[in-house]
């Protein structure tokens, strides 16, 4: 009788594991969708912010208000590089595209992003 019981519980366990796997799969798909949506929204948000800034800049110009002393803005291409760097990738000539190890800073990358071009 003992053996029968053992076998039954094993079958039960197998069924549980299968159900669990199905659930994990399902959740993974859901997570992917959420992540994708998140990335899309982020990009959308950025576009909107850029647009807003444009509108505000235009408005500032019209009303001739002296602009608050903001830090000199990076050009679009440099801002792009900065984004890559912040995402954890080298943007310097030597190591372009490889991962920054352990989030260590890289002086060459910073020069590419912020340095003065002579």
């Amino acid at each position: 009788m003992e053996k029968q019981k053992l076998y039954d519980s094993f079958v039960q366990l197998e069924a549980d594991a299968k159900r669990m796997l199905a659930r994990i799969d399902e959740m993974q798909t859901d997570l992917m969708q959420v992540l994708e949506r998140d990335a899309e929204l982020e990009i959308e948000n950025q576009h909107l912010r850029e647009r807003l800034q444009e509108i505000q800049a235009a408005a500032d110009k019209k009303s001739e208000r002296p602009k608050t002393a903001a830090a000199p803005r990076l050009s679009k291409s440099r801002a792009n590089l900065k984004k890559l760097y912040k995402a954890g990738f080298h943007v310097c000539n030597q190591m372009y595209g490889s991962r920054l190890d352990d989030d260590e800073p890289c002086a060459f990358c910073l020069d590419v992003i912020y340095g003065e071009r002579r």
Partner: protein
Amino acid sequence: MQFSIKRTLFVKKLNDVQRAISSKTTIPILTGIKLALTDAGLMLTGSDADISIEAFISATDEKNELEIGSTGAIVLPARFFSEIVKKLPEDTMTLEVKDNFQTELRSGSASFTINGLDANNYPHLPSIDTEKQVVIDANVLKQLIAQTVIAVSTQESRPILTGVHLVLDNQELLAVATDSHRLSQRKLHLDIDKDIHYDVIIPGKSLLELSRTLSDDVETVEMRIAENQVLFVAGTISFYSRLLEGNYPETSRLIPSSSTTQVEFNAPQLLAAIERASLLSHASHNNVIKLTLDPAKDDVTIYGNSPDVGNVQETLTHSNLDGEQLEISFNPDYMKDALRSFGQTEIQVAFTSALRPFTLVPTEDQDHFVQLITPVRTF
């Protein structure tokens, strides 16, 4: 080949040469030490293919007590040979090469016979004969090595950065090392021929070994450079090293020429404070400490935080704080290395922004020594 020699002196020279010998070499004969005896004296050679060290024991110097029976050359297994020599009983020892490279070592009543190898199979060291030699004060060279080698990269992924970049131009020697997280640059003025121009990359490991080889009684070091080798001659020691091939990245533009916030510290005091703050930052995952500078309140404070353990805050003694308010985060280990290289001195730290690298220079002499540290990316 047969000679007898004062043992203490021989052991000393043996130790010098042995620095170059590695047990992990791909060429078996390089686990040995080469002894070449001529009428002029005894030459010891050790090498691991990257660096080679030669030490010469002159026959004319009375102190060496070198007595030559017959000349010749032999290669002996370095580890056994040096251990035997160190443990021999008497003050003098005799070495004699017999048939089939069997070598007999005698001292007092002890007698060893070890198997040697044919010295003709030992690789030849590169011959570097150039007129353009550079003479540097040994202590200055040691200091230069200590100051730059700290910034050399230890990662093999970028081999070129494991070296120190030496540029000699117009009587000015510039030594730069960087691992891309920090950079160290030292300048020296040398009284040499104006025509001498070099641009080489010497492995940091070689320089470190070189500075260990330089004993206190050596006053000047002579540097000679050939195609892919550099030779340092210090007294009776010749130190050869392979050069790294490739182009060193342009580093002069990494050092900012202007700054927005400046402050001065006493280097040992700042070092002590950073060491205290790093006690906690080491426990946390990212190992970062934060520095805030507020010129309006004349206040400089460092913070260290480790969510698991706790946090630390310390107001720093400083002088001449000037410029804009700033908050910057960096790896305290880089700061510690940099500060140690300054020794007992006042330093000036100059910041451009929280995102740009900042520099440390001695307050007295701002041109000849610069340490640069890159801040940690903060989000």
